[in-house]
């Protein structure tokens, strides 16, 4: 047993964190609400190897697995990254690899962007994607954007661009059924990882505020009621963390308990984000209830991802069906 990341994995995480601190500021996240995703930022992430992280080396990617990816998704959540790293890199790439590898060399360089829909009503980032992987009657189809018709369905998280997609199935990709099941777990795992980052960002922003904001002549963070709110939020996210990392290992290792492990991860991470969002709002008080305060950018991302890929109650039911 060695339940840690390697020094290389942590260094890569730090490098991605640095990049996102520069290129994905709160102002950038806000900009995505009005003008959409940034192809420049996507290209920068592709140049670092992040976009093609899961692409096999023969197609120009880094050929890494979910253990290598989970920390980067966490950073994406922390930064509030608007681009579809989850859909493209965590879910789409392994599906294309299972289907024979077509398009992957373009995906690795960032010149072709994937999105994916496995039975949800709306498709994330469909306006940005060059290729949409869409499910129809249990089979997956690869459809180019020119061949679909999009209708915007604004999400509560304005940086998360949702669309209804009208399209005509032609020839499905040849993907074994177990790979399609695994794709759902990859999506739920990736959402859980982003939710960890979102939760911790909300807690850190709120702790900063609680140190600065004074009432009764002292920082509000010196009051026990405020301290305990934040301690509870931290407890939820720090307990979720190893659960999410274990799920990443189980997906990468094709562990027979993968489904239970992923559902635990998504349930804890969704609940942690919900707790963090409510504590962030309460501790900020009225300023947190405004459009101008940045916390809503992360709160709403947390709500959206908490509900996507199965919410906490759905995943607990899945665990219960397996263990009770």
């Amino acid at each position, binding site marked *: *047993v060695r339940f840690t990341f390697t020094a290389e994995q942590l260094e890569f995480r730090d490098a991605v964190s640095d990049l996102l601190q520069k290129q994905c500021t709160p102002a950038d996240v806000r900009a995505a609400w009005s003008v959409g995703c940034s192809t420049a930022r996507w290209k920068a992430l592709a140049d670092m190897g992040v976009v093609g992280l899961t692409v096999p080396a023969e197609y120009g990617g880094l050929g890494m697995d979910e253990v290598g990816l989970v920390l980067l998704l966490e950073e994406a959540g922390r930064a509030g990254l608007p681009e579809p790293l989850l859909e493209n890199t965590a879910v789409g790439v392994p599906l294309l690899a299972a289907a024979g590898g077509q398009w992957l060399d373009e995906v690795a360089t960032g010149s072709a962007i994937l999105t994916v829909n496995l039975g949800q009503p709306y498709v994330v980032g469909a306006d940005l994607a060059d290729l949409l992987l869409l499910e129809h009657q249990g089979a997956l189809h690869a459809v180019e954007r020119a061949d679909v018709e999009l209708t915007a369905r604004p999400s509560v998280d304005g940086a998360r661009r949702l669309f209804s997609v009208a399209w005509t199935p032609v020839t499905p990709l040849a993907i074994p059924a177990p790979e399609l099941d695994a794709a759902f777990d990859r999506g739920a795992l990736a959402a859980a990882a982003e939710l960890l980052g979102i939760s911790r960002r909300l807690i850190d922003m709120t702790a900063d505020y609680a140190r600065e904001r004074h009432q009764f002549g002292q*920082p509000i963070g010196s009051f*026990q009621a405020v301290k305990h709110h934040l301690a509870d939020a931290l407890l939820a996210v720090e307990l979720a963390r190893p659960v999410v990392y274990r799920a990443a290992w189980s997906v990468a290792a094709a562990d027979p308990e993968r489904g239970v492990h992923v559902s635990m991860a998504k349930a804890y991470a969704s609940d942690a984000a919900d707790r963090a969002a409510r504590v962030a709002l309460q501790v900020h008080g009225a300023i947190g209830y405004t459009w101008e305060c940045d916390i809503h950018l992360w709160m709403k991302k947390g709500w959206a991802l908490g509900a996507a890929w199965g919410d906490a109650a759905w995943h607990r039911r899945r665990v219960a069906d397996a263990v009770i």
Partner: protein
Amino acid sequence: MDLTYTAAQVAFRDEARDWLATHVPTTPLASFDTAEGFRQHRAWEATLNQGRWSAVSWPEEYGGRGADYIDWLIFEEEYYRSGAPGRVNQNGIFLLGPTLMEVGTPEQKARFLPHMAAGDDIWCQGWSEPNAGSDLAGIRSRATLDGDHWVLSGQKTWASRGAFADWMFGIFRTDPGAERHRGLTFILVPLDVAGVTVRPIAQLGGETGFAEVFLDEARVSVDCTLGEVGKGWQVAMATAGFERGISLRSPERFVMTARRLIDLYRARPNPDLRDDVVRGWMDAEAYKLHTYWTVSSLLEGGTVGAEASLNKIFWSEMDIRMHAAAQSLLGAEAELDGGAWLDGYFFALAGPIYAGTNEIQRNIIADRVLHLR
């Protein structure tokens, strides 16, 4: 990251399992909060020691196996899965033992550790006083030097297992002019010397699980001083860190509680409580993962600081939730006295209070992890 066990770890697990299968008493022991139960549990500690299983993480020279954290967790998993008795000397083996190894003199280690491992000496804690609970630095029990002896006077309380224990470890004010965290000294106190009076206290569940200890000019040799005179607070905090952290509540206890909860649900299915039951199972698994995560980091040179407080809040509140769910499943039978779940519920209810209340733990997290002052 590799979450599989090595061949050596599998062999260690098999060895522990085989030994436990042939040695764990087939009929449950009486509660160690009774005189007869205490005697039985002391004998069990001796049996464990004969198999060199009583303190697996200690060095071999003191009766341990030099097990690393992962092997320690493996042993604990097998221990609780086997249905083996609770550890009557956990305060000694898991709290004082590691502190002794860190700050004790070679003579103290040789004198105390083997008897601790063998169950000859059962230890209790002497932290709290009537007016020093959460605010531990307010302790007033004092120790005055008289030749080569400390003369102890004052009162300690809430000493778990104190009713029948042989020794107590605690902190005493040795510099009457110093206040709060200064001027305290960590002293090991034999409970059979003149001037020591132990009065058992009946707990919520009715048994005398803890005791108050009155000290009236009790004389204790200075070679029972642990660490430097005046540095008792620092030594005590090292001990408390072990307690709140991984050593007090190894995860498999809760995993076993969760399994019993699922068995209870299967016997008395109630869809209204299904979510509570699965939450209990998930929480126990999550706590186990958090423990493996923590010890893996320790094995690679990391440290556990205030994060130990997160652990303590989580296991204590999870334990209550699981027992409350079981009591709900039992319905009208939940109120019957003497039920195993009711006893467990009583014990669980103490969790957020002892080893530093959960309010204190939340303060520690806010102060030291989130830097809120």
